[in-house]
Each structure stands twice: as structure tokens, then as C-alpha cells.
């Protein structure tokens, strides 16, 4: 599954209100450039959970994971590589 393209598209449509790909650099800081504000980051969390089926705990909602297309793409890719445990397996693993 492509990760980068849907993320870029969502940010362009939802925060920049455009289809113009040139308006968004992959390394642009969302917060510094005012692309996404602080509660907007939570919209992004909701979006990646809904789109990629991952779960994002609070402690991972950090600028290094969520502050650019580049960082967010890498973060989602990493999450998708994580082994998925069910709750029961998690408890058993303890």
C-alpha cells in the first residue's frame, strides 16, 4: 500500500485546500509553516488510524513522527512493520 500519496493528498485537500502538489514539500514542517495547527495534528492521527489501520498512542504523537510528510510516512511505515498482537497475546507475552 502506498503510504506517502494518501498522506500528501489528505494534507493538500484538508489543510491547504488544493490539488496543487507543488504547494507541499515532503520535508516542510507542518507546525513551523503553519500547515497544521496543534489540534490539526490530532486530525492527522485520526486520519492515519482510519486509513492505515494502525493505533497511535499519545506518547508517539510527537513532532518527530507527525511534523512533515516525510516523518509521518516513515512513522506509518514503521508502525505497519510492527508485529500486531491481540490483547490476549500482549498479556501472555508478559
Amino acid at each position, binding site marked *: 500500500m502506498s503510504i506517502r500519496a494518501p498522506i500528501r493528498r489528505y494534507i493538500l485537500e484538508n489543510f491547504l485546500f488544493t490539488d496543487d502538489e507543488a504547494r507541499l514539500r515532503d520535508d516542510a514542517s507542518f507546525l513551523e509553516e503553519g500547515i497544521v495547527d496543534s489540534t490539526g495534528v490530532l486530525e492527522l492521527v485520526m*486520519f492515519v488510524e482510519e486509513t492505515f489501520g494502525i493505533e497511535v498512542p499519545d506518547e508517539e504523537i510527537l513532532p518527530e513522527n507527525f511534523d512533515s510528510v516525510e516523518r509521518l510516512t516513515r512513522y506509518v511505515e514503521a508502525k505497519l512493520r510492527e508485529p500486531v498482537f491481540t490483547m490476549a497475546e500482549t498479556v501472555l507475552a508478559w
Partner: protein
Amino acid sequence: MCGIIGITHWRGDAPPDEGLLRRMLGIIRHRGPDEFGLYRDGRAGIGCARLSIVDLQTGQQPIPNEDSSLWIVFNGEVYNHPELRAELELRGHRFRTRSDTEVILHLYEEHGPQCLHYLNGQFAIAIWDAQRGELFLARDRLGVRPLFYVQLPGGLAFASEMKALFLIPGVEARLDPYGLAQAFTFWAPQPPRTAFEGVRELPPGHFLRASGDGLAVQRYWRLTFPRAGAELRMSEEEAAEELRALLADATRLRLRADVPVGSYLSGGLDSTLVAALARQHIPHTLCTFSIAFEERAFDEREYQESATAFLGTDHWRTECTNADIAAVFPQVVWHAEAPLLRTAPAPLFLLSRLVRESGIKVVLTGEGADEFLGGYNIFKEDKVRRFWAADPDSALRPLLLRRLYPYVGNLARTGDAHLRAFFGKDLLAVNRPGYSHRIRWHNTSRLWGFFAPELLGTLDGYDPVEELLASLDGNLGDWSPLAQAQYLEVTTFLSPYLLSSQGDRMAMAHSVEGRFPFLDHRVVEFCNRLPPQFKLKGLREKHILRKSAERLVPPAVWKRRKQPYRAPIAPAFLAHPPDYVEALLAPEAVRVAGVFDPDAVARLVRKLRSGAVISEREEMALVGVLSVQLLYHLFVEHFPPQPVREVILTPPPTLRAGGRGEAPQEAL
């Protein structure tokens, strides 16, 4: 568009009184001031006050079939009538008029109640089978056009508005505690219940058959959604293109009329898109209409101006002041015939007056887009609460709720603790039916605290929310959370409140017909099959519609986030209140009506006048109390509040001297 009425006496021993039928038409003449017609036999009388829109010359009602065994009166429009007519003619049906009304009658001859499935439109229909002594009533799928009935000893009466029924001897208006309880929970009584005891509303998507043998109400159309995960599989681009094509066709059909059609233009995406689509199909300049508010917080004129400039329409605007809202509120309640918790219908009443003054009889509106394409905050609220419930200990997730309600000033100023307490109620019960709406309903029903103790005694043990949820389709839980929330929003709010108190009733008060491309059942059924994330993508509302509308509407309108349509409340009634406000809120008037606790109302009024910060709920309480006091005053205590004139029946077209273009005949 019209108003219809009728009375049956099954045994045929007392033919309905003609004067009464004419008075019943007289009290709803605003629905159809152009022509009046009656049919009467030994067992029944049906009548119509007509607003002539299609087939101006020969479309007079009631209309019989070939052998005069069936008679129809009809309020509404069937947009696909030319196509249906062609098919019926092939089957040998002969037509006397060009009207859509006659098409329904022949379709009914052909198919019986199943004929309703063929109709694309908004309608309330009454067909009297004079041979069999049977009455057939039907209402459109979503309840655009109203229809009420009441059982009489040995008969039945129906009407487009309840006020016509209250003219019948023995039918008296009494406020229904359960209808009030529903209104003070869901914002409107839920059909078949109304605000008045014994008066029933035929639910949307249902028909009724009645004769001397009894009465049966049956559903013919169901609002439904696919199982979660089984939605349409198509790309966003394909969905946007198909939606645009469907909407264009729905709009094109809704321009069918023998009079010019205008369009409301709020400055939001939905109505701007409708106006843009309409403009592509009409040769002349489109007339558009909007409301501007004296209070800036409610005003959208900046967007309206950019839309009219972009579309090049002939734009009419009415300026709505706080004083206007207070001044017309009694008329608004008279037309709505229901408790109101907001003043939002009042500006729409003023808007239809402007339309009428401009000479336009028919307007398109964007109603329905928010419900079927995911525009409302309540859908986002549901989504955010589920997002939070997935990690309930998260410190951050509930903060996303702030995204939803920036315009609710008081809420934004309170700290996170309040946010959590308010929206955290039953947070984890995500599988409980009604998850999306329980907070809203619970919060609204806090207004029951203003009810008089006797009324609360009657309501003891009655829970409208549980009653509603118990009546829902069994498979609701299989749908996506968004679909479940949409279903509840449409059935509890769009149909019984928006399409009525802010829709039909406010437009028809000034003889204006509203038409709703987003409520075309083909549009509705397509939207319902779309995946939820096409409607609400993240928190981006109406995602697919935005894609469909891009380049058709000005960028300023396309980009903006939804602004809920609201109107001022407390300042309208408290700054320089008209006399009736004082009179109806006085403890004695409140005591006589018997609905509210006079002491609680007095305390509310004192607080509102003290200049204290006023909450949403207190504003709702004010409007709720005032509207119910007005209902009591107008319908119970002083009915009819003004003398009702009998209409003078319009002669059949063959007898008319002037023929085409003749002035409508009205009572003097």
C-alpha cells in the same frame, strides 16, 4: 404545490358539510391561493387549494379517472411525470390534463399502492375510491410534504396542516404531553405523534388505507445503508463524477415547471452548488435569495456575494434584524404547528416572503446534503468520541473535540476537564444504539426541568429515547457508525423538524414551494452506498461533495468549513420585546397553559434579563417555552385566532370566461 383536505363518513349517513370543507381550505389558503376545488359525494369530501405551477390552465383539482370512480387531490410535485405519462398512454390511459396529478391517479389505477415506487418527487396524496368507499393517503419518502389525519366517530379527516382539522366540530386541539416530551428531546415530535393529542402525522415513506372496515398504515420505502465494509467499491474520482451527474439530473428535473424557478443561496457549499447546476439548465438569469443578519456572528453575506458574483445571478437579499425575529415569531409558530427550540425558522419565514414579493413561486435549496454526505458536527462528534474511546486514557484525543465547536463560545473558554466531562458520558458504550445522538438528546431533555409537576407526573416512566431506539430497524448495528448516525439524524431531525418547521411550513406560509435536489431518492440511495470515509474523511466534511463541486463554485465557498445556520435568540426577545412575549411568559399565562412550571419560567426570565452569561440550553428553554405558550394561545385558547373565510370554489376551466391568464378567484 397545494394544500389538501378531506373528510370521510363511512356509513354515508351524513355527507361532509360543504361550508366546513371550504373553511378548511380557507385556513390553509396560503398553501395554494390560486385555485380552490372540491369533490363531494355521500360518503366523502376532498378538496384542494392550489398553487399553480405545472399545467396552469387545466391542472385544477380534484381530478377524476376515466369513469369518475377515483378522485385525487395532491400536494407536491412528481418530477418524472412526462416519462410516466408516456408509459401510461401506451397502456391505453386517456388524459384530460397535462398535470402530474392525473399521472399519479392513472398510475394508481394500474399498480395500486405500489405506484408510489415509480414516483420521483415530493408529495402528499389523497385518493378517494368512490365505488369502494376507500381512502388512500400517501407521503413522499423523506416527508418533504406534510400530511396529518384524525379519526372521527365513523370516519376520518386529513389535511396538509393540522389547523384545518381543528375546524371540524368535535376535534379540539389539546397539547399532547408525549409529543411535547419528544420535542424537548429530539427537537420535534416524532411521527406519527404530533404536538396535539389524537392528531397523527402520516410518517414519511408510508401510505394509509382506510374504509369502514378499518385503517392500516404501511411503509413502502426504507432509509437503508449497506453493512459496514460492504459499501460501493469505487475510486473517489469515480464517486465524485457519479454524484455530480446525479445531482445535475436531480436539479434538471426540479426545474420542470410552468413558472420560473429560483434558488436559495446561503453562501454555503450546498446551495451554491445547486444554484450553479440550475444555472446551467435555464436560459434566463437565475434569481437567488438569501438572508443577511444584523448580528455579524450569524451573517454570511460575504460568501453570498462571492457566490452571486461568480454565478452571475439576479440576487435578492432580506436583512433580518433581532426585532424582525421577535415580531414574526407568532406567525412562525402558527405555521410550524410545533414546539420550536431555536429561532432559525423565523428568518426562513422572512426569506419566503421576499421570494413571494419577487414574483417567484418555486425555489431550489441545498437541504439534505449535510445529512446524506456527512456535513454535520454531530457526525464528527461521534467519530471523535469513538477515536477517543479507542484510547480512553489519552490526554490528547479529547482535545480534538475543540475542533468541532469553536463557535460555541462558552464551551471553548472552559477547560479540558469540562470538555471531558461533557463528551465523556458513556464514552465506552460504542456499541450501544444511538451512541452518536445520546449526548445531544440527553442534554436537550434537561429542558424537562421546566415542565409543570403535573405534566412530569403524566410522563413518569416515559423515556422517548428508549422508545425510539426500540423501534429502530434490527440491522442498524451492522452499518458503519457514520451510517447509524446519519439514519438517526434523518429520521429524528431532518424529516420531522428541518423539512417541516424550517422547510415546507416556512416556505408555504408565503405560497412558495421548496425543491430539494439532494433529496432526490436516487441521490440519497447512491450517497448511502458510499463508504463512510468518502463522506467524512478524517474530519473533512462532505469530502466527495467537495470534489464534485470543485470548479463549479467559487473558491472562497469551496474552501470554507461548514457554518451551521443559526439565528439570534435571547437578544431578539429580551432587548425590546413585543407585548406578546411579556404576556405569554407571565406566571398566570404559564399556569393556565399547564405545560411549564410558572416559577421556573419566572426564574429563567429573570436570569436572562439580568445580563448574566446565557447558555445554549437557557436560550433553547426560552424559545421552547415561548413557542409552546404560543401554540396554546393560538390553537387551544383562541382558535381560530382570526376569523376563517370560506373559499369560493374556482369554476371548471371550460366555464371560465377569461381562460388563460385569468386572475385567481378568491373569497372576498
